[in-house]
């Protein structure tokens, strides 16, 4: 076999690398840092810092509404966020209302709320309330701005809201300091269009790394008061509240998998150009 032919075969092989090898590389670079429980410090970005500052500015006893609009597919990214923000709220003695625009997301919100409330010794009905889910998305967001009870007459267990001490004086968004929307889809846009634009709701958007770029323009226009994107956003918030969790734990794995993918992209391009050059040389 001649040298160029052997070279071509080698390049061809590299160009059509078995994808199972790539799967193994991804598996190794993700699992090893996770198993070794490595951590790496993160620098807090402006969008996360202002979200933290907003929660920090709410006086004790203030009410924060959490809208859980994600399902288990995005839980690895969004669950650390809700845990970190709830930790912040309860540590500052803020009161919490839990709701959601996605039925399948509610159990995730409930788990986070109940576990964090237990950690801080908070009492249901006094420090936090779960008003549950209603279908209708934007209709629910708009209607709550006028009269919350028109949509949610009771909490998730069927207890009338007026029987819960915390809810007695809460009629609409006027008594709610801010809304934290945790979403993997387009629900934050509904909150911005119908909650912020119409009722002036102060909104923190927590979304996946893929979804975060959609909300930078709203952040720049000051239509939202903070933005947490992906595991990095969760890790930054955990850093701020000094409560390390899954976000910080995942940072080394994310670092190494990003490097691995960049390496694969560079290798793919190198083989592409070498192949093209070899073909051009053959044609010449």
């Amino acid at each position: 076999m001649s040298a160029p032919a052997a070279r071509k075969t080698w390049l061809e092989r590299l160009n059509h690398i078995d994808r199972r090898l790539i799967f193994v590389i991804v598996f190794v670079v993700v699992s090893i840092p996770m198993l070794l429980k490595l951590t790496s410090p993160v620098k807090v970005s402006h969008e996360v810092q202002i979200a933290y500052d907003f929660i920090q500015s709410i006086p004790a006893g203030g009410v924060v509404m959490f809208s859980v609009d994600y399902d288990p597919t995005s839980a690895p990214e969004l669950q650390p966020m809700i845990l970190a923000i709830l930790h912040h709220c309860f540590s500052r003695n803020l009161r919490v209302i839990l709701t959601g625009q996605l039925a399948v997301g509610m159990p995730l919100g409930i788990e986070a709320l109940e576990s964090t409330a237990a950690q801080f010794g908070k009492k249901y009905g006094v420090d936090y309330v779960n008003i549950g889910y209603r279908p209708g998305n934007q209709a629910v967001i708009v209607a709550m701005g006028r009269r919350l009870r028109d949509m949610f007459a009771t909490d998730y267990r069927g207890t009338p809201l007026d029987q819960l001490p915390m809810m007695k004086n809460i009629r609409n968004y006027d008594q709610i300091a801010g809304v934290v929307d945790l979403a993997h889809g387009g629900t934050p846009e509904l909150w911005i269009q119908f909650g912020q634009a119409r009722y002036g709701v102060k909104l923190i958007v927590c979304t996946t790394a893929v979804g975060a770029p959609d909300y930078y323009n709203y952040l720049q226009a000051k239509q939202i008061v903070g933005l947490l994107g992906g595991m990095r956003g969760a890790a930054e918030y955990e850093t701020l509240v000094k409560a390390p969790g899954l976000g910080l734990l995942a940072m080394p794995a994310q670092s190494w998998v990003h490097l691995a993918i960049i390496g694969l992209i560079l290798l793919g391009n190198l083989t592409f150009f070498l192949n093209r050059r070899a073909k051009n040389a053959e044609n010449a």
Partner: protein
Amino acid sequence: MKQRIPIAISFITGIIIIVAFYFPNGPLGDIEQRTLVWFAVVAGISMVVGVESLLRVNLMKVARRRPGWGFSLILLASCILTLVTATIGQIKYGSPFHVDSPFMYVFSYMVVPLQATMFAVLAFFIASAAYRAFRARNLAATLLLLSAVLVMLGRVPIGETIWKGFPQISDWIMNVPQIGAKRGIMIGAYLGAAATSIRIILGIERSYIS
């Protein structure tokens, strides 16, 4: 008549919602609020219709032993399991969503791992696709590739360890060219959405009832 009634409903509710936006107090605001509650009720009923349709299709598939009927059987069994555990939770704890309810157990230990695993598999395919498809074939593809690499490095702690400039470049890409492009697309899309909405309210656009 079959077309006129839906068009009339769209027109009346559309006009009420638009006018009530500008005059929220008074009777129009109350009518709008009532309409929103109706919307939520109809949305709830549509979910029931969806469940009924899903069950009917899969029941037929199992009954007629069509290809893949085993999967339909698993779906039906899962539906029954969810219904039973939710009912037990409602009776025993006052809500299926109580943390100790068996429904929450099914959700936490079956639904969450299954859905999370399905989504996690995407990471492997993205890595494989990036290797094969992310090629600097022309100027536009090269710019996209460079931006992607810079953002990927700027968004993880190791990027900053390699060079302190990566996060700054990443932030600039996210805050300047990304926002500019996105804003242009969104303004165009929402203008289109507004025009379509007006056409629906006025009964010009009727494809939704055909």
